[in-house]
């Protein structure tokens, strides 16, 4: 939790990462239907992820998962924790 930690160990929610960051999904918070929707769409633990962009006014955001691109609002992105990963998304 401190700045001493190496950068790849930093975990932050998806809405707090800068553009073009390569990462890996660490967790999806919650057991409700919103979490279910995120999981159904393939936002799963261990999946590679890249942030592609933010719409005007900063919301929603576009991400790339392994095989497809998706846009979601920051309110939902908050539930997704991501850590930078050396493996690129293809």
């Amino acid at each position, binding site marked *: 939790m401190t700045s001493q930690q190496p950068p790849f160990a930093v975990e932050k929610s998806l809405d707090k990462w800068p553009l073009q960051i390569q990462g890996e999904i660490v967790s999806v918070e*919650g*057991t*409700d*239907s*919103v*979490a*279910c*929707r*995120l*999981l*159904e*769409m*393939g936002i*799963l633990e261990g999946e590679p992820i890249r942030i*592609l*962009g*933010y*719409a*005007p*006014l*900063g*919301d*929603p955001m*576009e991400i*790339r998962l*392994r*095989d*497809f*691109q*998706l*846009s*979601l*609002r920051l*309110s*939902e992105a908050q539930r997704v924790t991501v850590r930078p990963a050396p493996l*690129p998304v*293809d």
Partner: protein
Amino acid sequence: MDNFDKGSGPTHGRPFQVALLGNPNTGKTTLFNALSGLRHRTGNYPGVTVDVRKGALKANFNGTDHDIDLLDLPGTYSLAARSPDELLAVDVVTGCFGESSRPDALVCMADASNIERSLYLFSQAVELGVPVVLALSMVDLAAKQGIKVDTLKLSERLGLAVIAVNATKGAGLRELKAAIMEAALGKVAPNAQMLPEAVKSTQAELAKAWNCHPGFVLRALVDEGGEAEKRLTAQKGATAVAELHAARQKLTTQHQIALPVLEPRCRYPWIRKQVAGTVERSQNNQKGFTEKADRWLVHPFWGTGIFLLIMLFFFQAIFVLAKPVMEWLGELTDGLASWVGGQLGPGPFNSLVCEGVIPGVGAVLVFLPQILILFAFMGVLEDCGYMARAAFLMDRLMARCGLSGKAFIPLLSSLGCAVPGILSTRVIENRRDRLAAIVVAPLMSCSARLPVYVLLTGAFLSQTWWLPGLTLFGLYMIGFVVAPLVAWTLKSTLLAGEKPIFMLEMPPFRVPAVKVVARRMVEAAWEFLARAGTLILASMVVVWALLHYPSTTPDGKYWPEVIEEAKGEDRLVLLEQWKSNTILARVSRSLDPLWAPVGWDWRIGAAALASFPAREVVVASLGIVFGQDPEWEETAVGEESEKRLASRLQEAKRADGSRLFTIPTALSLLVFVALCCQCVSTLAVMARETRSWKWPAFTFAYMTTLAYLGAILVFQVGTMLEGWIRP
């Protein structure tokens, strides 16, 4: 046992029922069209607001031809239903709409380039107790991205047929049809175990207790607060709900199962197991074209700029490209009217055809080029994948007034016509969001309002060069301002509820298919022509009759003949004498107290009343009331006829001799037309799409009220201002 059952359906003597299931953007519609050809009809399911298409086809299996009814279910990512429409697939499979429409087999469409996520829906489908065939699309695209699917191996592992298809090229269709028949005749449902034993047994117990299909029970059990639970509550009452809650409680406490997320948590591991070894991925670090394009297209600055340019081009195209064709159609109509007028002898029938039917229907037909361009443009944007980007860019702005980003395109196309606009709200899954978009769509200034705008602006508001443009802009702004306000009001009152989740797949960019775009254009054109041929025609006949009869002078002569014999100015005086005694005029005159606050007389009131079925009629009705017979003046063709009507309006006098149309009067009529819901087709489409007359009735009421109040406001304030400027 009869083995010579040739050609017909299964033992119960009907075509085999097959349902097509798949994610949006997987080429499902293309496959459906390729399989069923052009012959399909729209299925109608009670309580469902989406169109479900049904197509008939023949499939050959083991030398025998079989009839199949193919049902195209709406594209979805999951069977978990958040609205009645989304429960449709489960309802169809569980025989909710009767045993006869219950499928003998399911075809599940999966995108090979996005195999894991598209197998999620498939993993739900294989548990429904119906034989399943997996159709794989986009195999070429997947190969380009380094994804190779071994269909044979996958088929072996899943225990069902896996067929690679390319619907555009027609590849794999024969194999798919044979596989469908093999599955339907074999009657063997896949046997897949993904969910924990505790859930399975609970599902079976509840299905027995409630006498329900297990497929429905699973939805009620797992989707907390979802559509299946709502229906269970409505149909089975409190005991069932108590049992449901107890079962969920037991699963959570005794088995540590977190319910709503249970499914993806169990299904994705299963999917990964099936895919391991059957789907090969070569490491590919290249960013695809779509991702590179998106760096520009969804960029806050460049993306917005490109978006605005595209929209500008869109509007320019609608007006500039359509203009010559519209003018030509307009001249054709005028020419036709005068030619037919010459052929027919004088009399009521001549008047009906030349003053009612031809100009009325013609005034509508001139919009056909606009409709075609609008749909070509929308078809291209949608098929190439840009629509999702537009929704993405506009989402924040639309969310502020309680609409979804996906409502932007429907509202934009309502600038052409609210009918396709309302039809295109189908992309909005959330029911409340969709209703809000439907209810405000007719507030956008559609192209049918344009002729009135142009006529009145040209006649009364073009004293300086900048005034007409500003007025036209202001009239369009009325829609842009009022629609979000109404949407916001609705979403905080009638349609209040939690903010729906916005998740939109950004499909890969591709070259739009000419076939798909052409099909959309043709369908839209047909719908439009059918409307012009029925509704507009009928209302023009009625309006003409109401403004024609009684058609005899007090001394028993036929009015048009009397006017024909008169000279110059007398004609107008006689015309007014005749028209002011017709049925619609009498009605309108009895409503005088209603017109006084907005500054109209009976003639404007009659035109406004006449245009309630279709606002296109308003110009033609003004023409009938104020007299615009092309025979009277020789120069009267095309644009000239419009100028003539404009000068008639400018010269029109009130009973006391003052000018009828002052600037406030013209503005109050313009504002009224801008805000009023004078369009039966819009209301009919609304009723069809919401499956209720409640919403069209509401829309009609609120828009008419707004229009009247707006007209009063403009007239009263305008008159006051005029008094200050010219005391």
